[in-house]
């Protein structure tokens, strides 16, 4: 069964391990480079792109501000169309509901469409404890599941694996859980995809219960939407007799018409295509077509906590496209595992602390710092989530929760010392004289771009800071001293 993220080290430690893996860095650089080029090309084609982003953000904001009303409307629409609506406060409650439905039909396996919500709640592990096997059917999820690995990307959870590694996993593992990989399987992607087709087909054809998430849930019409590429989604949504969909409460949109924005924004941002190969929509039960028993589980699991944060709530606009991962200079180098969650990258760095709250777990508290605040994520976000703004906001929350801790953190001591020094003209003058002296004593430092020189490695504990950063050489004369000496530049 798939490993879990519990007990992951905080980001800096996990990132250090990831950075040492040259194969991983090579795989990531290749994959993110490819997708960035594709996205830029198809986004450039759409002249009204900026307007679509504004519309997407506004629709999501308006919905979130009245989320209770839209959810009640959704429940009413779904119920009228024959679906059963469940509400789940947390992961455990959601897992229990899905397991009960599966058990009610006496099955020992379910087929799954790729779904972030079910990953977030650890559904596969929960079902396994109850003796029910959950087969992941998305190709990348299959690679992760067969390799007993962890997902590292929202869209392509096996982005950290290259074709040769995937071939090895297929050859080694497929036979243990069903139809084995062909003897002569090579690492040509089309052949690997073909092996997955054969391996999974028998599972699709015999499945009684399907489990999915949803990209969108339309309140007005009770329509659920799943956006995918391979057709595994269509298989799971169409062939089983029973369908259970776990849907985060923030997935609701008010009207069917609103989808004309999101079905343009999502595919181009996500896989860099004008449209993804398959989008399925269904509204409750359609007599004679597809599952005749349909359940929808509306999931909170921290979303209302995020909603209560007036700065952070914009993260709930997220449509899980993963464009922010693909452009992030930090993600590109560390990969997704370092974030210790099913939501990696810039969006994960804000979503995890918002869903879980800060101040309880060092791993979660480290995430708002897993960024250089360069802002590339905001620029590509199709629903204009200002990720840097939320990161800074969360950093202040993390600092606030540690205020008054004994002994104080080194940053807190440094900040307090700086405040004391800068708060008084005489103390600042003394500090400037000291820094000028350091500047005169260290004239032969390494040149930085632009000509200014850098100090070398500082003595401990300063080395903890200077090992990964360049500290510019202090100027030999402060501005105030220069002003005084030259009478404001006149002398």
């Amino acid at each position, binding site marked *: 069964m798939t490993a879990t993220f519990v007990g992951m080290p905080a980001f800096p430690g996990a990132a250090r391990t990831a950075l040492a893996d040259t194969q991983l860095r090579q795989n990531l650089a290749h994959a993110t480079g490819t997708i960035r080029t594709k996205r830029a090309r198809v986004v450039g084609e759409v002249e009204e792109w900026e307007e679509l982003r504004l519309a997407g953000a506004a629709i999501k904001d308006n919905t979130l501000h009245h989320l209770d009303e839209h959810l009640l409307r959704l429940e009413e629409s779904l119920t009228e169309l024959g679906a059963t609506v469940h509400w789940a406060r947390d992961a455990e409650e959601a897992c229990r509901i899905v397991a009960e439905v599966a058990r009610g039909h006496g099955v020992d396996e379910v087929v799954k469409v790729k779904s972030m919500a079910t990953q977030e709640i650890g559904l596969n592990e929960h079902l396994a404890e109850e003796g029910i096997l959950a087969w992941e059917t998305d190709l990348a999820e299959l690679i992760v599941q067969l390799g007993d690995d962890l997902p590292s990307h929202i869209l392509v959870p096996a982005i950290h694996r290259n074709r040769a590694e995937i071939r090895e996993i297929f050859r080694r593992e497929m036979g243990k859980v069903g139809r084995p990989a062909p003897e002569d399987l090579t690492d040509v992607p089309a052949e690997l995809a073909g092996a997955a087709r054969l391996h999974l087909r028998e599972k699709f054809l015999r499945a009684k219960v399907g489990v999915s998430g949803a990209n969108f849930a339309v309140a007005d019409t009770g329509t659920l939407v799943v956006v995918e590429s391979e057709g595994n989604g269509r*298989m799971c949504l169409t*062939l089983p007799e029973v369908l259970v969909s776990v849907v985060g409460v923030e997935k609701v949109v008010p009207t069917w018409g609103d989808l004309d924005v999101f079905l*343009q924004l999502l595919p181009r941002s996500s896989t860099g295509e004008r449209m993804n190969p398959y989008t399925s*929509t269904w509204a409750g039960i*359609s007599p004679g077509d597809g599952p005749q028993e349909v359940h929808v589980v509306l999931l909170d699991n921290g979303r209302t906590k995020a909603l209560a944060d007036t700065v952070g709530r914009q993260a709930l606009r997220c449509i899980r496209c993963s464009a922010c991962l693909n452009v992030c200079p930090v993600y590109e180098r560390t990969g997704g595992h370092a974030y210790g969650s099913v939501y990696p990258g810039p969006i994960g760095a804000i979503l995890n602390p918002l869903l879980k709250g800060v101040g309880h777990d060092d791993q979660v508290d480290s995430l708002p710092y897993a960024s250089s605040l360069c802002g590339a994520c905001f620029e590509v976000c199709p629903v204009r989530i200002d990720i840097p703004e939320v990161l800074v906001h969360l950093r202040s929350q993390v600092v606030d929760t540690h205020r008054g801790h004994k002994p104080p953190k080194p940053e807190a001591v440094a900040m307090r010392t700086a405040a004391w020094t800068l708060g008084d003209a005489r103390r600042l003058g003394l500090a400037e004289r000291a820094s000028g002296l350091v500047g005169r004593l260290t004239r032969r430092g390494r040149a930085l771009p632009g000509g200014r020189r850098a100090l070398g490695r500082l003595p401990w504990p300063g080395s903890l800071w200077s090992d990964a950063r360049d500290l510019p050489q202090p100027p030999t004369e402060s501005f105030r001293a220069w002003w005084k000496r030259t009478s404001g530049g006149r002398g």
Partner: protein
Amino acid sequence: MNAREEILGRIREAVADRAGAEPVHVPRGYRTLPAPDGVVDLFVDRVEDYRAVVTRCTAAEVPARIREALGTAGRVLAAPGLRYDVDGAVVDDGQTALELDRLDAVVTEASVGIASTGTIVLEHGTGQGRRALSLVPDLHVCVVRADQIVPGVPEAVAALDPQRPQTWISGPSATSDIELDRVEGVHGPRNLHVIVAGD
């Protein structure tokens, strides 16, 4: 308190700051853009981009084009109510998924074609068949009338019925899961043949 009441309560508390606030303006200019010239040509180009096969013909030529598209496919199912004749076609009598898996091809119509994205949309009514029909067989031949082709996604969304099950199809089944390179042919039909009927 049950889960429903508790979640709704949490939401109301969370957004209390928005009480009485004006809604955010939603710009909708994207809905009224002028349609590009040559919508049908654009549709054909964009469908071909996905490496699907596209044929254009007059309405009268459709049965012949269907025959060509089917090639050597032996067991072919025609969606119930299909307006074109398909020689020797199997009818849908509620075959199980396993039985559908033994078919070589399926022929359906569509509800809408989207030019800007090269998408066909099925609403699975007359001439289109239940969803499993156009999913399990490996070749899907789909006839779209030229007058069903709209310029973009907004026009398609406006024309479709949200309470019918829909399948939006853009090329054959594909994946980008291996090194983010696109590969055609995974679980859905590996071959998609679109016939555009009329001018």
